[in-house]
């Protein structure tokens, strides 16, 4: 095992600061097998060394608690790990411990790398290449410029991480020796490896390294995992069209999906073309069992592919609302019923036509069809779809009819009970998509996270490379710095575009699609950080204005960059099939005029002249993992709680709202009592009576905010978002009535897609660490509000 700062102190008895030995009666086992007495003071010194600039941490406390948890004869590595965990365990009490734990971990990682005789970035790349991990091009670039690149590394940037960020990078992103399982790169080597994997020249590597190591922008996880390696699968999402209605086509899709998930891609797949239950099978003169048995096979197949242990394979199945098996589909995630008709690993989304929502509103009948009988419904949208659907109804081709509201209620129940069955809107997604100008080009589904909308067909599997700007880093002196944002976006889009050419495509259908359309997905994270820094409640008019302006700036600068790239390299191959070619940008499709028309007119003229390098530029992904690395709130989401834990493959991590803690400290309110109140309130500050109304409004959680505000913000950024956004909605205790109102509103506002519905369990685990009082007080008059019963 490796050594770290703490061990160093225990092994070098004459380290800088002399302190009297404090015997603990415990022993640790050193690397050479010898036993050594544990000395409290040495641990204190090692921790103090990593506490520079941290005024609130107490090294003696960490050392004492570490020793208290130790057993006699533990290894020095165990001692080091325990001191890191001990520091991390105090985060909820004092957020500075997160920084301390992050630094202790960084020191531990440095030692682990150095113990393998890797002392520089170029040595790390060399070792990676010897181990068969790093590709030839990256090795060449690094070897030819090793001094320059080694000098560019800024080790102190690892101090920008909080503990969770450092841990996430260490456990899951850094390259490991395949045999010893030790990491061969430090966090900064890791960032530089990612940069070199995308760079053509050392200057590019330097620029991109500086951008990502500052945590102002991060590429998506697949790029972080695989850039510079022998498996340059750098894309996040793949969208596969529905298999054709044949056994061969279905089994070919299973194979495609397995190939794509193997290297960290998330899968969206439509199943709308496959015939429904009861449909005649000519070959055997039997009847089809419908889509469920095939989805069950898909479920197992997805579970079997484990992305190198770093992520689980994951897929989302899309089904159109008129499909004859829609009701079976809506039961796939239920936790009761026949197991052979349940798919616990698959996510599901409804691909909903406007016509359905209109009939729900007007309380009319809805007809279900077998796609074998009316195959044209899959490849049409808007008025054309409506005509064909109504013609099929008139011709008596429906399998069955039911009240539209009954089906809608089942969709809502599925959302409430599983969070799944996401509502995505077929017509908005097609009518406001840049790729659907030419008849026959149709968006058939979104992706695993409902932010990508690209056309697919049997020959084209859509692909998207993603990255997100950390908006929280763009607030300077209490104001949002749009210029800083513009610069980040321009650099980032350049490298997102670069990914298209470097990317390894596990299947040919993805390669042909990507070179035709060259779509990328520039997203954002940390919007909540912006609002906290500017002290704007999520549902304030100012928040709405800033959020829209941010999105407009991102769109504008992404287009500028794509236009410049087109000038250099030519527009993407399908440029003439786009709405932008016809002169329409996203806001035109929404019927919205941007505030500064002049700069937009100029840009449009340039686009008319040189075209665009990318058919699509923006998509707001959930950013769950990269926001953890950057230490900011996820994408465009409000905070879920002021105090909560993240459950990840690396373990559970306490997260606390630093902005709130700083405010409370200033008010002298950061006390045990306040902490207890917040913990009892499950992270709400509404019961902290000493807080002003203003602060309580600012620090509301996603459960406490009106969801209408989230939808309004999403709709307002829509005109400047050419793909879509992973919009989660939150409702602690959902009912069909509340949900049906909410999703009808989202549809009316023109949203293309929505994502998870998050809700809360009806009962919860009894808290152990809050001060517990007697259960005597149970108010029978008002059982709803009584803690003992809830």
């Amino acid at each position, binding site marked *: 095992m490796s050594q770290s700062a703490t061990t160093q102190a225990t092994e070098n008895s004459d380290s800088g600061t002399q302190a009297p030995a404090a015997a603990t009666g415990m022993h640790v086992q050193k690397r050479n097998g010898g036993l050594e007495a544990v000395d409290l003071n040495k641990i204190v010194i090692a921790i103090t060394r990593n506490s520079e600039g941290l005024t609130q941490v107490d090294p003696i406390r960490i050392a004492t608690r570490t020793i208290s948890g130790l057993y006699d004869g533990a290894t020095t590595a165990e001692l080091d790990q325990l001191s890191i965990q001990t520091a991390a365990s105090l985060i909820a009490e004092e957020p500075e411990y997160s920084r301390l734990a992050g630094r202790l971990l960084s020191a531990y990682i440095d030692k682990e790398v150095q113990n393998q005789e890797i002392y520089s970035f170029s040595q790390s790349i060399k070792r990676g290449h010897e181990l068969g991990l790093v590709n030839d091009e990256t090795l060449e670039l690094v070897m030819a410029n090793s001094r320059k690149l080694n000098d560019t590394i800024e080790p102190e940037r690892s101090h920008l991480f909080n503990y969770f960020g450092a841990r996430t990078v260490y456990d899951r992103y850094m390259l490991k020796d395949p045999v010893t399982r030790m990491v061969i790169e430090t966090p900064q080597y890791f960032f530089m490896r990612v940069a070199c994997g995308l760079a053509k020249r050392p200057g590019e590597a330097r620029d991109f390294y500086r951008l990502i190591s500052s945590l102002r922008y991060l590429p998506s996880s697949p790029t972080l995992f695989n850039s510079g390696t022998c498996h340059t699968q750098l894309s996040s999402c793949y969208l596969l069209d529905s298999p054709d209605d044949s056994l061969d086509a279905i089994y070919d899709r299973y194979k495609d999906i397995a190939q794509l998930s193997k290297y960290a891609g998330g899968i969206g797949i439509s199943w709308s073309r496959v015939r429904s239950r009861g449909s005649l099978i000519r070959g055997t003169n039997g009847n089809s069992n419908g889509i469920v048995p095939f989805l069950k096979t898909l479920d197992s197949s997805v579970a079997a592919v484990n992305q190198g242990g770093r992520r689980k394979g994951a897929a989302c199945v899309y089904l159109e609302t008129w499909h004859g098996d829609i009701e079976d589909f809506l039961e796939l995630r239920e936790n009761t019923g026949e197991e052979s008709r349940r798919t616990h690993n698959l996510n599901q989304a409804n691909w909903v036509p406007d016509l359905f929502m209109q009939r729900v509103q007007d309380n009319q009948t809805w007809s279900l069809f077998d796609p074998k009988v009316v195959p044209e419904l899959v490849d049409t949208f808007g008025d054309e779809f409506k005509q064909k659907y109504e013609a099929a109804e008139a011709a008596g081709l429906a399998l069955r009819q039911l009240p539209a509201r009954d089906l809608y209620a089942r969709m809502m129940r599925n959302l409430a009970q599983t969070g799944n069955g996401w509502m995505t809107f077929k017509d908005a997604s097609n009518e406001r998509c840049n790729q659907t100008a030419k008849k026959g080009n149709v968006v058939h589904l979104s992706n695993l996270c409902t932010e990508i909308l690209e056309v697919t067909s049997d020959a084209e599997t859509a692909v998207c490379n993603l990255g997100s700007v950390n908006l929280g880093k763009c607030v300077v002196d209490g104001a949002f710095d749009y210029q800083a944002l513009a610069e980040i976006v321009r650099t980032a889009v350049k490298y997102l575009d670069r990914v298209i050419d470097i990317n390894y495509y596990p299947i040919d259908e993805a390669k042909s699609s990507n070179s035709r359309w060259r779509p990328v997905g520039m997203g954002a994270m940390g919007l909540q950080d912006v609002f906290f820094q500017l002290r704007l409640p999520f549902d304030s008019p100012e928040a709405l204005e800033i959020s829209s302006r941010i999105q407009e700036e991102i769109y504008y600068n992404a287009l500028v960059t794509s236009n410049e790239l087109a000038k250099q390299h030519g527009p993407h191959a399908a440029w003439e099939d786009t709405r932008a070619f016809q002169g329409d940008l996203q806001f035109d499709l929404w019927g919205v005029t941007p505030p500064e028309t002049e700069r937009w007119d100029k840009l449009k003229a340039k686009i008319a002249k040189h075209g665009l390098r990318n058919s699509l530029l923006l998509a707001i992904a959930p950013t769950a993992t990269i926001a953890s690395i950057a230490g900011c709130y996820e994408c465009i989401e409000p905070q879920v709680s002021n105090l909560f834990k993240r459950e990840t493959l690396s373990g559970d991590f306490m997260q606390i709202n630093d902005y709130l803690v700083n405010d409370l400290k200033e008010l002298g309110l950061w006390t045990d009592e306040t902490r207890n109140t917040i913990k009892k309130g499950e992270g709400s500050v509404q019961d902290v009576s000493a807080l002003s109304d203003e602060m309580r409004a600012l620090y509301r959680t996603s459960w406490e905010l009106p969801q209408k505000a989230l939808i309004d913000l999403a709709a307002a950024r829509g005109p400047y978002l050419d793909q879509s956004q992973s919009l989660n909605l939150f409702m602690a205790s959902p009912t069909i009535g509340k949900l049906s109102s909410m999703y009808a509103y989202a549809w009316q506002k023109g949203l293309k897609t929505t994502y998870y519905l998050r*809700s809360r369990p009806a009962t919860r685990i009894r808290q152990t660490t809050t001060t517990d009082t007697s259960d005597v007080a149970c108010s029978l008059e008002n059982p709803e509000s009584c803690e003992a019963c809830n």
Partner: protein
Amino acid sequence: MLLDPGFKLTLRPMEYPAFYDMYRDAIKNTWTVEEIDFSTDIVDLANRLTPAEGHMIARLVAFFATGDSIVSNNLVLNLYKHINSPEARMYLSRQLYEEALHVQFYLTLLDTYIPDEDERAEAFAAVDNIPSISNKADFCYKWIGSINKLEATHTHEERKGFLLNLICFAGCIEGLFFFAAFAYVYFMRSKGLLNGLAAGTNWVFRDESAHMSFAFEVINTVRDEQPELFDEDLEARVIEMFEEAVECELMFAEDLLEGGVSGLSLKDMRAYLEFVADQRLANLGMAPRFGSKNPFAFMELQDVQELSNFFERKVSAYQVSVTGEVAFDEAF
């Protein structure tokens, strides 16, 4: 009164609506064993646990294998017949189902964790063969078995016997033994190990927490109705019970931790058990007996709401039995 012998059948007017609300909340939290994914556990067991951690987990699942069955039996044999309220009996019926579900979960867990049939049989026989586990079973039988033959609670002494059973059941078995077991699982979980065990255990403990709340609600109802039952004698016997329970669990901890697990020292374990025992006494409206502080900061993680990345963990925070009609004008 709640402990008056008999089998009351009328639900309206409802005498104890709190029990009925608890029943309904329990229904909303229905989960199934099939939803749990053990695939990463197998990898962890094979490659990622130290031998000492492996021993700890083996012992722990051996305890789980039989613990919930003891609880189920007591529920049927000693509690159901004495709590004379049809709405409370609805809750107990639901609880019985949940206990069976937990037994099924641990059965599946052991079948998955221990592929060798002989070893598996040995694990299920732990209650007879492993002293630290049989010791716990003996403690349970001592305090809950005393009313096995009791047909009806007429006298004060009989009702106190019932209360002691219920307090042992909710306060010591569910409230202390299971909470200690939770600490071990949670310790592993905080390190990202054994996600399947953690996911299932999380649901089990969500259920157990509700069972405890129900039991304390029964105790408090009885206290309101017959405060004279809660005399010094009862308190003294409760204290004695908790002292025994802490020692009993500590003996189990010595066995579990005999290989040395960094971050879980015996010293800290004792403090944790005493801290939890004091909390249970507080639930009963009694003064603390031990005065220890919680040494396990990782237990704080279970007191706050969770946010899962669906890529990584199955999101568990949903309800079933959602009701209502389609509407377009409700606030959201």
